[in-house]
Structure formats: C-alpha cells, structure tokens
C-alpha cells in the first residue's frame, strides 16, 4: 500500500515533536503505519530533535537523581504484551451507531483526547455523506475502501486534513465500504437539515 495523500511537513514535524493533540496524533499515526515515506520523514525530524536535545543547556538535576534512578532499575516494569493486531483492531471503539442507511459511526474511546472527537466512520459503497464544512481542524486517514471529493480520490492509507473554510461532499469510491478514522476539533456543520439531523444523531 503506497498512500498518495500525505500530512504536510509541518504536521509531521509537530507529530514528531509530540506537539499534536492526541486524537490528531492517532490519525497521523494511522497514516504513518501504512506509509514508509512519512515514517522516514518523522524519523528525520526525530533525528533533528535528537541533535537539538544534545545541544540543550544542562539544568541542575537533583543531587540524588542518579541514586534514585539506580534504585529503580531492578523494579519489574509493567508487563507489556506485544500486540500483533492491526491498527484498526487495536482501536478501543465504543458502540457503533447507524446514522443513515449504510452509514455508521463508532467513537474511539480516548479519554485523553476529550477536547477533540475521534471516531470511525463507515459508509457503504455508493454512499454519499452530507455536504459539510468544518468549524475547526479535521484530520482523516482512510483505513479501508476509498472516497472521492473535490480534491481527488482518497484510498486506504491516505491522509486528509481540512480546516475551517473547507467545504466538501465526500462520496464513496469503488466497490468496498469506506472506513475512515477522524479527529475533529469543533463540530462539523452539515448543510441542509437532512444532513444536520444525521450529524446530530451521529454526534459529530
């Protein structure tokens, strides 16, 4: 899988620096998992940050810091089982909610991202979503299938970022259901009451 739509360098830099909100970082991470090119860019940003770390002015650490740390070395770390499941399977999802024929939404259970909304949206083939605009930033990574909007076709692995003024009407492309991971800040504004009702119901 070679994604064709990527996060901009400033998004990747913020991701590498740990400066993105966790919901948005999750969506960028979903793209990076299937995009070797972006993983390489993130690694390059990390290397630059590492070099910067080496140049940081040293501040005083506690006089007992080393002995405290040495004393902790023998503590057993919390066991972490390696998780071989795919990204999609690892997502902690809340209950699916059908919002229209062929369309469901499942919020991702991320209490650490409570200021943003993180959710999975699935639209059946041939499906149309409501034309909408954004009140804040929205990041999206396609996990399965593909959709098409004014900007082109977005297939599995592709990343899209939308900001306030962007207004689009995505349509499912191809023969497969389209599943996307979204993080949004602010609410989406659907156009037309039918869309508004669906969005209210979907809680996005």
């Amino acid at each position, binding site marked *: 899988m070679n994604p064709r739509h990527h996060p901009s360098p400033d998004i990747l830099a913020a991701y590498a620096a740990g400066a993105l909100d966790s919901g948005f970082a999750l969506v960028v991470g979903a793209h990076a998992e299937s995009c070797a090119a972006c993983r390489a860019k993130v690694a390059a940003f990390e*290397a630059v940050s590492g070099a910067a*770390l080496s140049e940081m002015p040293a501040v005083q650490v506690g006089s007992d810091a080393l002995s405290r*740390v040495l004393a902790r070395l023998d503590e057993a770390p919390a066991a972490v089982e390696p998780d071989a499941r795919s990204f999609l399977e690892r997502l902690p999802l809340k209950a699916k909610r059908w919002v229209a024929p062929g369309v469901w939404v499942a919020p991702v259970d991320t209490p650490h991202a409570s200021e943003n909304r993180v959710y999975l949206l699935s639209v059946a083939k041939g499906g149309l979503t409501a034309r909408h605009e954004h009140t804040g930033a929205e990041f999206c990574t396609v996990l399965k299938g593909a959709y098409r909007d004014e900007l082109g076709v977005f297939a599995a692995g592709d990343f899209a970022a939308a900001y306030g003024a962007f207004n689009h009407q995505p349509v499912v492309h191809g023969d497969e259901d389209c599943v996307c991971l979204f993080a949004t800040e602010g609410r989406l504004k659907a156009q037309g009451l039918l869309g*508004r009702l669906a969005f209210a119901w979907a809680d996005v």
Partner: protein
Amino acid sequence: MRASVLSSGAVFAVSRVRRSRKARAVHEMAADSDEALLARVAQGDREAFAAFFGRYAAKVKSYLIRLGARGAQAEDLAQDAMVAVWRRAASFDGAKAKASTWMFVIARNAWIDKLRREKVELAYRGFVEAPEESEDEAPDDAAVRAQTREQMRAALSLLSEEQRQVVQLAFYEDSPHSEIAERLDLPLGTVKSRLRLALNKLRTHWEQL
C-alpha cells in the same frame, strides 16, 4: 633493555587491571560514544548507565521544561525517562538511529504519557463530579443539538405510526428493506412505498423550515 620495556608494559597492564571499576568508568567511558555506552547498558552495565545518565539527564530535564513541565515534575519525568533508557536499551539499534535520537523519542514519549495520564484523570474527575454535563461540548453546541433533536422529533411526529416504524428500522437500525418487510410482515413493495412517502413528507417539512 628489551626485557625491561616489556616488564614495564606488563606492570602497566597489571595496574590497569587493578584499577577500580569505578575509575575505569570515569576514565575510559569518557571517550566512548553514546552509542557504545548504550550497547553496554543493554548488557546490564550500570556504570555505563551512570555515564549515559551523566551525559543526558540534565538535557532531558531541560527539554521537558521547554515542553512545559515545571519544577519537580520536570525532575520526575526526567528520572522516569532515564529508567526507561535502562529498560529499553536492548531495543536500541545503533545502525538505525543515533543515541540522541533514541533518547529524544524516549523523553518525548514520557511527556506524551504524562499528558495522557493527566487527561484521563481530568476526564474521570469530570465524569464523577458533573455527570450530566458533557465537558467537551460548548454550551452553544448543546443548545444547537437539543434544538436539532427537537426538530427531528417534531418532523418524525408528522409521520403516521406505520411510516415512523419503517423510518426507524431503515435509518437507525439499518435493516435492509427485505428484513423490514419480514419483521413487519409486509410485502417488500409496501415497505418501499411507505419509506418513500415518509421521506417525501419529511423533506417537504424540512424545506418549509
């Protein structure tokens, strides 16, 4: 002459062996690269770890302060990061990354984990103290949503019971039309025409708003 040169070399070698391990750490490790130190840390070498700590702990703390950690918190997080260095040293691959990059990633992740813990606590507190208020929703949002839900209810109330039933099944439960027909014991054509009528009615209502 030759023999004495040899013997003085031998004496030097012996004295090197006799030096304390601590002295070895101070004198030899000073010249080691960060990467070489990490390789030894991965073998469980505490002196190499102490040397690595000496090179990085203060810088990591400085970086954490720049990210926004304060006072004791920066100190605690820097210590956590150094413990993580010990635990994860075996995963360091000098062929893939420099030690400074690897250290940066550990420090950054310590910061992200800390934010995550704080937000989980915050979310939990919010849940416990104010269960009726959704903390991630602005008051305006709540009003708009309540209004929209009200409009939805009003629109649905225009429908006959029969129509409401098919809309409910088709839209909210996403039942295929054939399944709705089966559940309601109706011909498929009737389900489709009811749905069509219901949607027309809703559309007319919404367009008037």
